[in-house]
């Protein structure tokens, strides 16, 4: 998509909350901050707001650039802008960095007002429910009573679902992409390996590494490498890298021989530089704990009894981390409650990461659905 449909230069904002937030764990955050960005204009009726929820490693910088020469725009830039599927000529789009994040919102890395030192290991474990409650507090501050839609992929899709459960009257549409009603044992297992990589890094210091001016980069790097393997499909990896060698010949060493290794190293290194290990631990835990059916004997249909929102559910054929089967479970629970729902299973080769790509059919679906929402404003 051309730059001319971009939201252009954007600025992050910071919202402060002094009303304590009760967390699912039973703990309380006495005060907190949320970093967020907005694109487009809130209309007079204040009914055109769309909240974009981020996944594991995302943040509030969803679209546009901070500076003209930024190498990359926001993480879902291909979706958002004037004339793009989520059209900023019609909608007021909001991106938030979730609690526990490391891009400006309160988290382990930020300063605990009580101690004036980084929260570190003291920052509580937060859940998807907690995130949604904090997001709702932000909506209160922005004067938004009801969101036209909440959209998210992966862990972001889980937040969209949670909105319709926690605030049935405050989200009119939920767009749930490449998500699941909970994690499978295999998914929890991947997360645990990632966490163990971080926790066993000698530079982790039980989560209080800031004090020692250290970062558990080795652990975070391995966690990210593992993650990347699961976000791609076998086919996508095969097509992109195959067995291509970095240099001409096999080197009979443990240095990078294969292109695949080179890619993983690069992704791991980059991530370990810019992301915070405590945030990674907390984000994966939020994923593990998400399970709206758990209070209903595992019956998702019962859990969805109070849902009022209309749903668009999208999955990708090659996504094995959050497979189409998992999306169908969401669809079934919605159908069982006679809710308004459409479901697309998009043929895609990119695996879980497909939700970030600008495949024409996929974007056609989102364009069509957002037009429907726009017509209801």
């Amino acid at each position, binding site marked *: 998509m051309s730059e001319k449909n971009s939201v252009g230069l954007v600025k992050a904002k910071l919202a402060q909350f002094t009303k304590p937030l009760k967390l699912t764990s039973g703990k309380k955050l006495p005060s907190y901050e949320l970093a967020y960005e907005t694109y487009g204009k809130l209309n007079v009726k204040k009914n055109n707001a769309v909240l974009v929820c981020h996944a594991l490693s995302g943040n509030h910088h969803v679209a546009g650039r901070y500076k003209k020469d930024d190498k990359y725009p926001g993480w879902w830039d291909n979706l958002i802008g004037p004339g793009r599927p989520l059209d900023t000529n019609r909608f007021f789009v909001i991106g938030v960095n979730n609690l526990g994040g490391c891009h400006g919102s309160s988290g382990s890395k930020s300063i605990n007002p009580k101690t004036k030192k980084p929260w570190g290991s003291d920052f509580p474990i937060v859940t998807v429910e907690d995130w949604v409650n904090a997001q709702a507090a932000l909506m209160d501050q922005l004067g938004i009573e009801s969101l036209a839609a909440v959209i998210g992929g992966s862990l972001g899709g889980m937040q969209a679902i949670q909105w319709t459960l926690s605030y049935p009257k405050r989200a009119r549409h939920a767009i749930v992409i490449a998500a699941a009603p909970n994690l499978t044992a295999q998914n929890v297992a991947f997360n645990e390996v990632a966490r163990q990589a971080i926790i066993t890094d000698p530079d982790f210091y039980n989560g209080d590494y800031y004090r020692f001016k250290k970062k558990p980069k080795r652990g975070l790097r391995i966690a990210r490498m593992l993650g990347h393997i699961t976000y791609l499909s076998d086919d996508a990896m095969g097509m992109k890298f195959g067995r291509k060698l970095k240099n001409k010949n096999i080197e009979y060493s443990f240095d990078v021989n294969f292109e695949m290794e080179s890619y993983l190293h690069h992704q791991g290194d980059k991530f370990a530089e810019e992301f915070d290990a405590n945030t990674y631990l907390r984000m994966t835990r939020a994923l593990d704990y998400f399970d709206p059916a758990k209070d209903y004997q595992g019956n998702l249909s019962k859990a969805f009894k109070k849902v009022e929102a209309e749903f668009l559910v999208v999955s990708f054929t090659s996504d094995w981390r959050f497979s189409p089967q998992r999306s*169908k479970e969401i*669809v*079934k629970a919605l*159908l*069982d409650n*006679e809710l*308004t*729902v*459409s*479901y*697309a*299973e998009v*043929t895609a080769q990119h695996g879980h990461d497909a939700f970030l790509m600008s495949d024409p*059919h996929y974007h*056609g*679906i989102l364009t*069509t*659905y957002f037009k*429907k929402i726009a017509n209801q404003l």
Partner: protein
Amino acid sequence: MSAQFRQDFAVIANWIPFGAKVLDLGCEDGSLLKFLEGSLEVKGYGIEKDDAHWLNTLKQGLNVIQMDLEAGLSGFESQSFDVVVLSQTLQAMHNTEKIVHEMLRVGKEAIVTFPNFGYWRHRIQLMKGQMPVSKTLPYEWYNTPNIHLCTIKDFDEFCIKNKIGVKERLILTKGKPIHVMPNLMGALAMYRLVSK
């Protein structure tokens, strides 16, 4: 829009109660559902496998679930719909028996329509030594999706054998009901089915 009012829509609408919950299997671009929503205010859901059809159905503002009917209707609870419709798709299904049973599991009633292979125009073409091509069977033998064509007599026997009750049956040719020798004179067969 490719939506062209098909002669069977009005009959289907006659067999569906006002405000019913309707599942349309193989809904194509959603024309039938749109018509039923407009005329009967049904709560409708379409099922469609094809990307382009699926998107066109969404464009009409309808609920549409992308899935392959051949896999059955496992995502749907038993008796959760008033009516399940399979309009001119039966003949293209691999698992013909399975889908009809699934329709009657999910729906309190099922409506099935199909082109009558026993229609005299088809028989004449066969007697002339060629595979029939007609308004209801617009394909050549080499590009037809229709793999399980049947006659009205065949389908009646299918219902008896599978213990399916025929609540109503209407045979049409050029939109007009046929009462005399329907298996010979009828082009389109429409059945309103219930479990026995």
